[in-house]
């Protein structure tokens, strides 16, 4: 078993009922598992919610996380994408200072990242970017010299490649 701590992407399909999120987050907190990000929404089946959880830990920690998640009565299925081929996306909105001097420069950066400017004021741009976490990080780095005023990220969502579904 590897002792190496690494990032894992887990998906949990859960009953879409009040309190399920509290059960899952409470479990992580009391067992000392670290959540890097958590995204929750309903699925094509309105009775099922899908949680995408990014956690760090070694294999042993991960094994406990998935087993403990499975023990929750309202958790239907847990998938660890770590050793699978999957696509991942995250969406972020970044509000940054933009004045007459640097607007075009910022727009070039935004273009390169295939991001979009979705709101403009006399002093700011709001940029929307979608991609892997690393891509969002990279754009944030490039934009930070201009002065980021506000930023929000959805957290990662993930889906396995190919025809297979959970």
């Amino acid at each position, binding site marked *: *078993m590897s002792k190496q701590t690494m990032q894992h992407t887990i998906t949990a399909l*859960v*009953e879409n009922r009040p*309190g399920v999120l*509290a*059960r899952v987050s*409470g479990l992580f907190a*009391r067992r000392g598992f670290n959540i890097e990000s958590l995204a929750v929404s309903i699925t094509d089946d309105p009775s099922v919610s899908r949680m995408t959880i990014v956690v760090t830990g070694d294999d*042993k920690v991960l*094994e*406990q996380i998935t*087993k*403990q998640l*499975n*023990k929750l*009565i*309202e*958790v*239907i299925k847990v998938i660890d994408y770590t050793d699978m081929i999957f696509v991942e996306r995250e969406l972020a909105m970044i509000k940054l200072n933009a004045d007459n001097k640097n607007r075009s420069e910022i727009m070039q950066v935004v273009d390169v990242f295939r991001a979009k400017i979705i709101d403009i004021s006399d002093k700011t741009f709001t940029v929307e970017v979608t991609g892997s976490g690393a891509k969002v990080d990279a754009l944030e780095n490039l934009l930070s010299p201009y002065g980021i005023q506000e930023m929000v990220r959805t957290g990662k969502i993930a889906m396995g490649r190919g025809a297979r579904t959970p």
Partner: protein
Amino acid sequence: MKINGAQALIKSLCHQGVENIFGIPGGVMIPIYDALYDCKDLKHMLMRHEQGGAHAADGYARASGKVGVCFATSGPGATNLVTGIANAYMDSVPMVAITGQVKTTALGKDSFQEADITGITMPITKHNYLIKRADEIPQVIAEAFHIASTGRPGPVLIDIPMDVSLGTLDYKPVDSVDLRSYKPTVAGHPLQIAKAAKAIAAAERPVLYVGGGVISANASAEILELSERTHILVATTLLGKGAISEMHPHSLGMLGMHGTAYANHAVANCDLLIAVGARFDDRVTGKLEAFAKKAKIIHIDVDPAEIGKTVRVDIPIVGDCKSVLSELLKHVQPRQETEWNRQVMEWRNKFPLHYPDDGGLYPQYIIEQISEITNGDAICVTEVGQHQMWAAQFFKCKYARQFISSGGLGTMGFGMPAAIGAQIAQPDRAVFDIAGDGSIQMNIQELIPAMVHKLPIKIAIMNNQYLGMVRQWQELFWNGRYSGVDITAQPDFVKLAEAYHCVGIRVDRAEDVRDALDKAMNVTDRPTILDFRIAREENVYPMIPAGQSVEEMMVPGRREGK
């Protein structure tokens, strides 16, 4: 037929075969207690503190194998259940706790006697429910009993707002439950079972390590068959006591911190450890790196999360202990006694459990006498502390569900109410609560329901006027600095028994123990308190200090060479 939610609750409980409920009413519980008033099939025991109700339901469940049920009102009634629910959770006891709640329109408004009990009990229940509509009641009750009693058993809490109790519904009994998200594994993986059988055949120094999971799965017969066929010796955990008769030559008694030296030596030196329904608790393993370090480990457990949680496992088998063991028995060949059996027996002869015979009143002697006078048939319930460990060492169990103790949570005050539940479940057996003078004071109020229901439980207090286990640690590891452990200031337990309309007997001398026990056994219509004034600073030995290995096992200095 239109009935109200409270009536549907009572009907649903009857439908589940519930016979006994331990509880206390309150404002929002009135509709439920009103429905109970008309019900002939449910016997309700009115407790004096909700914690007592939870422990009584727990003791009832452990002694009967059925689901224990307790009632409490909203707010403080519900929060008083918390320790009892946590206790049942840690020891995997099937229980359904039903709490009243303020009406749905008052929820979340800090209403009078409102507490978010589903939020509070999330980490200490297997599952819990807040019912929002009366017509959910039959389904939720059926689910709750299913969840509490299957897979790894555990407590389930159901919170019922008062307007839900008063709401109406068309009652239809719910017979079966199918939850897409809850499918406990019963049958073990055949390949793993075959591997385990092979490992058993190849082992030279095997040991069985048996826990409470064997008792909750009613798998004692399978353990006995496995042990007898293979001559594999059996060490049990505190909760596993009785999984095999401790009179059986293959029984090594309890292992762990205060386990027998020979059980611990056997585990430390074995080459195959077969863990069944046990969870490698720190009180069992001590220092993990040194625990069974020469051994290949087979782990059979119904809860996959227990496998590999603390100890690496070579052959994991997830499944119901009874089912897995029966399959395993199809593959296991008879083995003869070996040199290893002889070696462990030598350890047993060399390091037996013992205590001084200088004429003093020793708790070990008292417990042996209790075991003897009841022919080893009594149900032994304990509180938590030194007396609990002495009971584990010196009360020899013959059968499963005979030893009832708070293992995981270590709840002082558990014993007496649990003894009430056990006596209700097993009316024909003698029930002893082996208690400490500290523990017994934590739920002493439950003497009243025991008296009202004429339960002849015997409460044997090992009275050393100390919070003795903490004192022992302070003596051994904290330079004898006895901080906060002297409880010389205490009630006169004989008078206290009498004040509660029970029988009280004080014993100061070893020669009076038998007489006192005979007297207690003759009391058949009320509880008896036996106040044994034992040697004050007697310690529990052997002891492996927390987090250490069998190498560091302590035995009393003054007894060396004996």
